[in-house]
């Protein structure tokens, strides 16, 4: 992706925006980029706990926007990985001060003066002011969607709003896909969703229990030692964002013994 300021968005809540932001941010940093992840969900701060940095929050985005602290005081450096920084949302302060113009200037400052290579902006759910602010500085978007009708419908709406707002390099992440259900014909497939939304695909993340475990302990799954399909795919997405041509996972092939029996006797 050419875009250096990327908003992670979905319209619908609870589809995995924050987890996606945390993991792709960490994976990009692991690839050597200097990355800032910014939580714009004012009042419902979450990126800090997902990343396990909640105890280090002193200042937040609104403090920066209103000039109560310097940018460097608010940025929390992730000690587990070089070049990864979090700018947390405010938990309490009035979100009226979240001005799209000022936020655009903040992101520009990070890219031009603080030497950041990439900014990932975790957008709040919905299509109102919070989303509009989050998208204001973005040149591109990662649209996170679950294989489920309400999520796809909201994603379509968001894509329309992004395009209308001049955010042009938009890519699709299908999150929480369950290959067995797709195979059975009880879940929209990645192809279906791509076709309906007409957006280029950049990631297919399977449902993975490891995600909840990683959130429990506050460590993005891409930084953990345990093998995880979701972690692998988040790493792949980071590589694709950087322009590498990484093949998409073949979800047909996993499933183990039962699946292979079905392949042999199922006549598919």
């Amino acid at each position, binding site marked *: 992706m050419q875009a250096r300021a990327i908003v992670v968005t979905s319209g619908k809540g609870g589809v995995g925006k924050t987890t996606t932001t945390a993991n792709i941010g960490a994976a990009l940093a692991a690839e050597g980029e200097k990355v800032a992840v910014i939580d714009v969900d004012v009042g419902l701060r979450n990126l800090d706990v997902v990343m396990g940095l909640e105890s280090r929050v002193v200042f937040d985005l609104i403090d920066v926007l209103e000039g109560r602290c310097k940018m460097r005081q608010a940025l929390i450096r992730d000690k587990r990985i070089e070049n990864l920084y979090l700018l947390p949302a405010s938990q309490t302060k009035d979100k009226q001060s979240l001005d799209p113009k000022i936020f655009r200037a903040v992101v520009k400052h990070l890219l031009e003066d603080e030497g950041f290579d990439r900014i990932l902006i975790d957008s709040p759910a919905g299509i109102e002011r919070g989303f509009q602010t989050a998208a204001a500085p973005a040149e591109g978007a990662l649209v996170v969607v679950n294989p*489920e009708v309400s999520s796809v*419908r909201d994603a379509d709406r968001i894509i*329309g709003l992004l395009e209308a707002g001049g955010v042009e390099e938009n890519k699709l992440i299908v999150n929480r896909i369950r290959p067995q259900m797709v195979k059975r014909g009880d879940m929209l497939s990645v192809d*279906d969703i791509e076709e*309906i939304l007409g957006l280029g695909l950049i990631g297919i993340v399977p449902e993975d229990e490891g995600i909840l475990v990683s959130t429990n302990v506050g460590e993005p799954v891409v930084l953990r030692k345990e093998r995880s399909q979701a972690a692998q795919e988040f790493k792949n997405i980071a590589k694709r964002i950087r322009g590498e041509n990484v093949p998409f996972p073949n979800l047909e092939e996993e499933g183990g013994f039962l699946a292979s029996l079905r392949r042999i006797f199922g006549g598919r």
Partner: protein
Amino acid sequence: MFWWRRKKSKQKAKERLQLVLAYDRARLAPGKMEELKRDLLSVLSRYFPADAEQVEIEFEQRGERVVLVADIPFAND
């Protein structure tokens, strides 16, 4: 091994989505179709006698595409 007996639910999901998105993208509440129908009729009636009672207008899934289908019978009188 019962799933082939019923229509796959994902097929249903896909069809419903394509229809609802057709309305969403057109910024058209399904209720707005009545208005469209009236306007269409007033134009058409300048050219031929249409049976206003029997007119049907709806979005329809046709293969890969969603199309607006208007079924407008001639008036019999």
